[in-house]
């Protein structure tokens, strides 16, 4: 096994471990932290089903952002939806045989890749051109955008200009499952693409990318508005009563 293949195999084992363990840790931490008071932003649904609907609208349509800022919504939604399609498209590298829905989504995944880059470019431009957004941006905000854009661009370049041996890439990843990685092609573009994806996986649990699990735990969005009907008391608050 070549040195490169070994390095990338370990890199991906490490990245997967960090991503999985890190996100699991945060999710467990969020779930275990009590929400002692009912604080849904109203008007809020009065039933559990209503809350599921509200969260679905937030996750799929970015409803609150739509009300907040149309430009950010357009670019943000295009980016995330593009990323979603790209992720679906990439699943074919990780499964054998490839499921039919994943096969069907392949051509859309390519458009997703383009959309992703367009959305990111728009979001990044706002960090320079809107003075309020410029003020709140820290170096890490720019770096994450750069990271994602380079991932998107290297991906698109491999699709349209410098083709890589995708069959070999797939056998590399499938091989990882059985701790028997197959040789990874030595294309610089592919190596850069894969390196940055691993970097993204590693920083995920330590960065603002935690907004993904965070949204599901946001009390102002996920709580049912029924405080008069049901007493809602956290364990630490209950102890004050004795």
């Amino acid at each position: 096994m070549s040195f490169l293949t070994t390095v990338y195999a370990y890199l991906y084992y490490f990245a997967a471990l960090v991503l999985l363990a890190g996100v699991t840790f945060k999710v467990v931490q969020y779930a275990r932290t009590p929400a002692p008071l009912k604080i849904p932003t109203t008007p809020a649904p009065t039933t559990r089903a209503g809350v599921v609907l509200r969260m679905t609208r937030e996750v799929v349509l970015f409803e609150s952002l739509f009300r907040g800022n149309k430009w950010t919504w357009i670019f943000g939604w295009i980016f995330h939806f593009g990323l979603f399609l790209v992720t679906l498209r990439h699943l074919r590298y990780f499964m054998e045989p490839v499921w039919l829905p994943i096969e069907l989504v392949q051509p859309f995944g390519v458009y997703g890749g383009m959309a992703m880059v367009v959305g990111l470019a728009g979001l990044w431009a706002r960090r320079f051109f809107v003075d309020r957004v410029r003020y709140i941006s820290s170096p890490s905000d720019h770096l994450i955008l750069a990271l994602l854009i380079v991932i998107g661009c290297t991906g698109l370049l491999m699709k349209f200009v410098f083709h890589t041996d995708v069959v070999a890439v797939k056998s590399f990843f499938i091989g990882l499952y059985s701790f028997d990685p197959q040789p990874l092609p030595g294309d610089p573009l592919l190596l850069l693409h894969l390196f940055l994806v691993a970097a993204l996986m590693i920083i995920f649990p330590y960065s603002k990318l935690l907004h993904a699990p965070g949204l599901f735990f946001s009390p102002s969005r996920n709580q049912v508005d029924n405080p008069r009907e049901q007493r809602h008391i956290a364990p630490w608050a209950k102890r004050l009563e004795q």
Partner: protein
Amino acid sequence: MAKATFEVPELSQYLDVPPVTPQTMAHSKPFVAKPEFQAPLGFPGELMDDWQEKALDKMGELLGKYRSLRVYLDSCVKCGSCTDKCHYYLGTKDPKNMPVGRQDLMRKVYRRYFTLAGKLFPKLVGAEDFTKDVLDDWYSYFHQCSQCRRCSVFCPYGIDTAEISMAAREIMDSIGVGQKYCNEIISKVYTIGNNLGLPGPALKDTLEGLEEDVYDDTGVAVRYPLDEVGADILLVTPSADFFAEPHVDGLIGYGKVFHEAGVTWTLSSHASEAANFGMFIGSYDNMRRVAQRIREAAIELKVKRIVFGECGHAWRVAYSFLNTLVGPWDFLDPRYPVPQHICEFTYNLIQEGKLTFDKGENDDKVLTYHDSCNVARASRMGDTPGGQFEIPRAIIRATCNHFFDMDEDTIRDRTFCCGGGGGLLTDDLMELRVKGAKPRVEALNNVMLEKGVTHMAAICAICKSQFTKVLPYYGMEMDQIVSLHQLVSNAIVLTPALDDEDDEEEAEEAA
């Protein structure tokens, strides 16, 4: 009156978002609470020597107690959706008054001490040490947040700056840096029973005076009872209602509604205050202690129901937290929600056809309605989401002939704060209050010019007090702000009681 030592913003027809102008409000900070007002709340008297360590301990404790704080500090992606939503930013141009700017004052400390990225690469992720300068910024800017939650409406993750402001204030209180206005008021509630420090005899006197006034005006004996054991309803209302206009006109209205409903009711000298400033300082313990008085009063007076008067954050604490803080309320009549808002009570009577109004009595006014933020974005009325918007409007329509809403972007859950909520209704923050009121006053001004609106009704004691004070800075009249139940009071047609016989004829004529 209203000579300003600062520049009063100019009103414009359209909401314009000002360019970022750093540090314009760095000088604005409230008076610090003296040791004698810290102690009764359980806080140290002055800034401790090892304050940084203590503050970080407290922050760690709160991160473990409040999911909101932890999730909100982690989740912000700096998308900017909130940046143009805060009335204080729009009025002051100071970027630390953008919700994300305000949150970052805490987030940078959180990142530095509680996250790996901030420990390893502070510059990269905007993490900073908790220095005295940072603490000073906290004191300034966490007291420039009225906890109105407008930002949380527009945040894709629902990040609520109010939660972060409350936590910051609790951390500051815990190291001895309290805000005078809030903490002195909570002390007063503990010692005298209400925010204004009105003792029982003064309340009794006021209520007797009201009975006489109403009888003189209407010829109907409407009762304003205090501490009557066995009454059906305990009314809990902000102490401002006993004291000043326009608040007291609202209280007069509640009494008339109860009179027409034919229910017995009472106020309590023990729970003579609906407001709960424990919420403003983020202190669960103090909020619970303040709320406890209402439970005690309800038990002592053997009432069956609890109704809250017009007050924004009091209604939030009542609606959202009362059951949690000092429940369960199983000793009350289960047919009614605990507690109810006076607007729900009045609205139900209107629905049942039990109230008669002479709308003409309000014809001297063209009205608009100010949704108070804590009611709009943090509570509900009635059975369906959004009842808090519809019920007050339905009451206004039932009692007035002329009503126009302000611009849709500035009402309901997008309503603009009056600028005085969250424990900022103090003279030492007048510049902030005037500037923070700008977006609301702009919308009011527009509807005055376009529709000929003359008055704005509100159901929050802080809103009413704040507008009374700041409207004159914008060339408007202080009495343009009215209580919603003042409108009810003007229009309601009273039924004379049996012992009103002598004046029956007169009353009928009036009807």
